[in-house]
């Protein structure tokens, strides 16, 4: 009974909404404009609703047959509704596209998530039949040593901040493989545009522990002249562009620099790093789009570590991660296990070759986990479970995983391990102690580099400031060099 009532009500509602349209249709002499609208006739509608009261759409066969009956002109437009309309391929701006009479929306999520490339299993053993770029013993040991150095450096500097010796620090714990292996796959001519969690790339290229310490302490020896907060490293000598705090601004910069390389026809590419959070910025969209349109040699490497401070990726985007966005811009992409050093090495190596030889951008999504807090200003236990953090720190440590692999090759042993770790610790302690003692940048550096040549007003201000300090020395710190 209820079903019958519902059905008839549905018919009445349907008819009421369609009557107006149908009167328009009968008055109109031209049918072709209605080709793609599903306008039901009375008879087809009633039949449809009896079968399926909830359906809003008419049966196509009924529609077409009634159409053909009612107008000769329409007949030319319609073929069998079940096939893709091969006769109706038109050149819209943007190229040829085949029509289809099936109204099918592309699903918002794939049937299966994009597969993730890995070479080593969780125990650091080569997966059978895995394809990867071979790494020499020498290279593998350097990679491992640098990963250990990075890991140790993070621990020491983090502690130093906790002790109040530096003001700020951000660790790279859990992302050592991404840092070191990606750097290892590049040449020193390739330009690096980092976000701020990639000091390992600089380490690989030869930035010393002393130089890291000097920047963190903002002293006179800092090649950044104490202008920025800790971890904002930069070195022209190492082709590593100075870290800026703004998120994702380095992406369009990287594209511009890649354009520059392209115009110079250099055998080099650009790599730029960013996190899952950075993909939400407008600059991400603009950079990928322009890189594809202008066909520049740039590698976009996303460290999808699951967290943007306290924002998990479920609150950041609803796509299948970042790799699928590449297709949206016409960019070749791959998803890689970010904690697998060999997989990172292979994919970045291949990406570099494609980027340079084919002059195209490549997107790499490295799945990983941010084991540390966002920075020393953050306590991530407030928004994620402690055991989750600990599990990733120990069971999924990329450093340990790579060590197992080099050990299984006979290239490493526990003696080498303790020797390395002791060396690094000693060097770090020394670097920190020394950096702490070096005096800060002199006053003149307050006014330089604003412009290429210091302008008059700044020169005047510097003179005035020196005058004031001379007259009131008690108001100024004694340990800051004039």
């Amino acid at each position: 009974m209820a079903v019958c009532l519902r059905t008839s009500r549905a018919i009445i509602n349907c008819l009421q909404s369609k009557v107006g349209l149908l009167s328009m249709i009968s008055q109109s002499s031209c049918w072709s404009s209605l080709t793609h609208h599903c306008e039901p006739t009375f008879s087809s509608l009633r039949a449809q609703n009896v079968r399926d009261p909830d359906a809003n759409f008419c049966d196509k066969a009924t529609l077409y047959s009634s159409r053909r009956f009612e107008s000769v002109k329409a007949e030319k437009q319609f073929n069998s509704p079940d096939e893709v309309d091969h006769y109706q391929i038109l050149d819209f701006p943007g190229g040829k596209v085949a029509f289809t009479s099936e109204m099918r929306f592309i699903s918002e999520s794939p049937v299966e998530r994009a597969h993730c490339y890995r070479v080593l299993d969780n125990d650091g053993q080569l997966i059978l039949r895995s394809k990867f770029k071979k790494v020499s013993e020498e290279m593998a040991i350097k990679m491992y040593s640098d990963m250990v150095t990075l890991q140790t450096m993070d621990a020491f500097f983090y502690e130093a901040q906790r002790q109040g010796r530096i003001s700020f620090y951000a660790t790279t714990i859990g992302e050592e493989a991404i840092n070191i292996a990606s750097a290892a796959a590049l040449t020193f001519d390739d330009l690096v545009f980092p976000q701020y969690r990639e000091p390992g790339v600089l380490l690989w290229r030869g930035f010393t522990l002393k130089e890291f310490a000097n920047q963190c302490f903002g002293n006179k020896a800092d090649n950044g002249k104490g202008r920025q907060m800790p971890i904002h490293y930069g070195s022209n000598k190492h082709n590593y562009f100075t870290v800026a705090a703004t998120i994702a601004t380095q992406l369009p910069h990287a594209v511009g620099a890649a354009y520059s390389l392209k115009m110079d026809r250099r055998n080099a590419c650009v790599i730029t790093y960013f996190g899952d959070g950075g993909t939400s910025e407008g600059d991400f969209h603009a950079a990928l789009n322009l890189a594809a349109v202008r066909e520049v040699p740039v590698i976009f490497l996303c460290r999808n570590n699951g967290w943007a401070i306290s924002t998990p990726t479920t609150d950041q985007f609803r796509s299948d991660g970042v790799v699928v966005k590449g297709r949206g811009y016409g960019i070749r992409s791959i998803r890689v296990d970010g904690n697998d050093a060999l997989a990172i090495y292979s994919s970045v190596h291949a990406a570099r070759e494609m980027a340079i030889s084919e002059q195209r951008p490549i997107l790499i999504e490295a799945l990983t986990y941010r084991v540390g807090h966002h920075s020393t200003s953050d306590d991530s236990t407030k928004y994620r479970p402690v055991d989750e953090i600990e599990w990733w720190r120990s069971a999924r440590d990329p450093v340990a995983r790579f060590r197992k692999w080099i050990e299984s090759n006979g290239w490493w042993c526990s003696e080498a391990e303790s020797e390395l770790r002791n060396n690094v610790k000693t060097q770090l302690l020394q670097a920190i102690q020394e950096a702490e003692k070096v005096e800060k940048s002199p006053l003149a550096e307050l006014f330089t580099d604003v412009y290429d040549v210091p302008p008059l007003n700044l020169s005047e201000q510097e003179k005035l400031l020196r005058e004031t300090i001379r007259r009131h020395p008690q108001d100024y710190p004694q340990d800051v060099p004039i």
Partner: protein
Amino acid sequence: MLGVIRRKIGAGGSSLLTSGWSFQSRPAVSAWRSYSSAAKEMTVRDALNSALDEEMSADPKVFLMGEEVGEYQGAYKISKGLLEKYGPERVLDTPITEAGFTGIGVGAAYYGLRPVVEFMTFNFSMQAIDHIINSAAKSNYMSAGQISVPIVFRGPNGAAAGVGAQHSHCFAAWFASCPGLKVLAPYSSEDARGLLKAAIRDPDPVVFLENELLYGESFPVSAESLDSSFCLPIGKAKIEREGKDVTITAFSKMVGYALKAAEILTKEGISAEVINLRSIRPLDRSTINASVRKTNRLVTVEEGFPQHGVGAEICTSIVEESFGYLDAPVERIAGADVPMPYAANLERLAVPQVEDIVRAAKRACYRSVPLAAVA
């Protein structure tokens, strides 16, 4: 160039008048003979185009990018002919993303190219202002001299005619407040040529504020300014008209208005000195102060909003350095403190007019009944 053509066309009698050339009756023959020494005329548009052309020709690292700069010959035809001459690698039509192409320009500058980024109007630079300020202006300082950004951001700025609030905003004060940037505002064709060439050659990021309504205006240009090596110094103002009773500072379109006001004031016995600022940052404080020390009175003129504007900075500079020389409070003429309305009558009321400048000068000279303070 155009001036030369017009002269040739007008060589025969009456057609001199139809060519629109304001030239008193001189026989056609002598006009021809004196062709090399008489002043040539050039529109601001041609001045900018020729400056771009010459700089791109001289340095292969200079390239232009922006919306519609290539195939369309430039939204305001400033880049006419450049795509054809230099090809798509050096004249880039960009997708619609100010943030994107500004970031890309900055990145290209980081690595050694010399981009000229065109904003269709500076209103749209708001979508790119993070890159202008945080990536361009501050980079040299933050990187301790490792990253220099020899980039030029140019485009029309300020009010045009009947384009409404989001197309009429003047950003001179916004950019000029930021250390690390240089901000230029040309008035005449000579300004346009000399300052754009200087901007392109400058190793620092430069914001180059043009004016849409000035693009079509013609100015006489000296032979020296037509030379391809011509350059004007950044940070020097120009005294367009000397005077002794009151100093009027202005930039861009308002310079023309100030000059007209000075004409009117002469008839009333007030001799106004008009300063064309040319450079908003660095501001030529010494020229302005020297002028005020001579005249003892100051009127600042700008099209933009009054609060925290260019006039406010000039006033402070005078108060700090030449307070004792002032015989009257500084008068500030600026646009009305409202988003720009569209209707022509309202727009006229929202933008300074010549009469406003004249009245202000008179107030500074105590030659009129003091007006009630305007809120």
